[in-house]
C-alpha cells in the first residue's frame, strides 16, 4: 500500500485495531446498503462492549443482528430497532442499552462529526422526551434543542464502486447513511462490490471523495431483502 492507494486484501487487515469498548458507526438503512462482510469480521474478532451507531440493528441472523448472538454490543444508538427477537430479549433483560435518536438528527450527528462541528441546534424533538437535559434556544421565535455530533473510533461503510484511492459511488438507496458514516470515523473502512483503477470513475459522479476513506476492500454481498413487495407484471 502506497500513496493514496487504500486497498487492503483481507478483512483481518480491514478491521485491524478494533478493540473492546470502541464506538463503531455503521452505514445502512434496515439491511439495505450494509457493510455485510465487515460486520461478519467483527463477529469473528469477538470484540465486546461495542457502542454501535446505526439507524437500525439488522435482523436475526443478518447484518448487525449477528453481533447480538455473542453479546458484543453494549449500546445501540439508532432511530428504529427491534426488528429482531434477540434484540428484544437482550433489551428486556437489561443486557443492552439503547439510545433512540430521531433519524434526521442521527444523520446530522454523523455529518457534523465529519465536518468538524461539535453540536448543532435542531427543532426535531423539541418538547419531547428526546429534548430531556438538552440545551434549548430560541431563534426567530422558534425553539431548538442542542444535539452533539458523534464520531466513531471506526466507521464501516458499504459502497458500490470505488477506485483504489477510495473515491466511491453508491448504488440506488443503498446510499442512505453511508456517505455521512464515511466522514465520521477516526478510521473509515469501506467495502465495495468493485474496485477500479483511479481515473475510471467520472470525478463529477463521486459521492464520497477518497480523503475520507482509510481502508478499502472488495467483497461479495448477499444483499438480503427485508420486505419483498412486488406488483403483477
Amino acid at each position, binding site marked *: 500500500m502506497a500513496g493514496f492507494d487504500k486497498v487492503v486484501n483481507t478483512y483481518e487487515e480491514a478491521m485491524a485495531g478494533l478493540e473492546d469498548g470502541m464506538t463503531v458507526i455503521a452505514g445502512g438503512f434496515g439491511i439495505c446498503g450494509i457493510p455485510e462482510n465487515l460486520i461478519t469480521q467483527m463477529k469473528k474478532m469477538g470484540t465486546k462492549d461495542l457502542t454501535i451507531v446505526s439507524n437500525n440493528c439488522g435482523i436475526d441472523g443478518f447484518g448487525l443482528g449477528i453481533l447480538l448472538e455473542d453479546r458484543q454490543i453494549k449500546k445501540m444508538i439508532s*432511530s428504529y430497532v427491534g426488528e429482531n427477537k434477540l434484540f428484544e430479549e437482550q433489551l428486556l433483560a437489561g443486557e443492552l442499552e439503547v439510545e433512540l435518536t430521531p433519524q434526521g438528527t442521527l444523520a446530522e450527528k454523523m455529518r457534523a462529526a465529519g465536518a468538524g462541528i461539535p453540536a448543532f441546534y435542531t427543532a426535531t424533538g423539541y418538547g419531547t422526551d*428526546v429534548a430531556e437535559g438538552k440545551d434549548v434556544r430560541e431563534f426567530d421565535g422558534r425553539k431548538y434543542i442542542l444535539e452533539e455530533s458523534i464520531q466513531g473510533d471506526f466507521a464501516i461503510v458499504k459502497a458500490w464502486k470505488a477506485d483504489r484511492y477510495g473515491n466511491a459511488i453508491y448504488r440506488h438507496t443503498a446510499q442512505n447513511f453511508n456517505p455521512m458514516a464515511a466522514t465520521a470515523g477516526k478510521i473509515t473502512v469501506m467495502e465495495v462490490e468493485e474496485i477500479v483503477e483511479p481515473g475510471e470513475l467520472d470525478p463529477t459522479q463521486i459521492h464520497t471523495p477518497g480523503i475520507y476513506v482509510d481502508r478499502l476492500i472488495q467483497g461479495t454481498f448477499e444483499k438480503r431483502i427485508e420486505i419483498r413487495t*412486488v406488483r403483477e407484471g
Partner: protein
Amino acid sequence: MGLSRDQMAIRVARELQDGYYVNLGIGIPTLVANHVPEGMEVMLQSENGLLGMGPFPTEDAVDADLINAGKQTVTTATGASIFSSAESFAMIRGGHVDLTVLGAFEVDAQGNIASWMIPGKLIKGMGGAMDLVAGADNIIVTMTHADKYGNSKLLPECSLPLTGAGCIKQVLTDLAYLEIRDGKFHLVERAPGISVEEIVEKTAGELVVPDNVPEMQF
C-alpha cells in the same frame, strides 16, 4: 359507519396540488398514492433517500438496493433523484416538502402529536417521525377518531409521549376533517352519515362547531 381506509386516503388526496412533493407515512397515508387525481403530478419523498418513488417492482425488477422508508422494494418514478439520509432530512427539516401525511395515536388541541411510543409496550423508536413533524408546515394526520374502546384520540392534552409539540394543524379521522388553531379543534367536514352530535361526543378536546358542517362527498 365512518370512512373506510380508502375513503380517508381519497379525502386526503383532495389536498394534493399539482407539483407537490409529498411524504407519506406508513398505513393509511401510503394509500393516498393510489388516489392522485388524473393529470396531476406529485412526487413522493421516501426519507431513506429517494425523491420520486415509483410503484412496487415486477418480480424480475426487484432490487435489494432500491427500497422505501418502510423497507419495501420499490422502483423510481421518471424524474426521481436519490441521495443520502442527511440530504433527505435537510429537505424534510428545511421545510421543502409540500405535504406530509402521517398516522398518530393521539393529537391534542395544542397541536401536539403522539405517534411513536406506548409506555409498557416494547419501544422500537421514532424513525423519521420527529423530524417530519418538526420540519413540515403542511401536515395532515390520519387516524381513527376514537380507539376500539370508544375513547377519543382528539384530546385536551396528549397522554402519551410526544412526537412533536404544537406542529399539527389538520386532522382527518374516520368521522371528520378538523383543523387545530387557537388551542381548539375546529370541525370542518363530517363523514357521510355521521352526525355532528357523534363527533362532538367523541372529541375530548375543545371543539368549535360552525353552523354549517358540510358532509364529505365521495
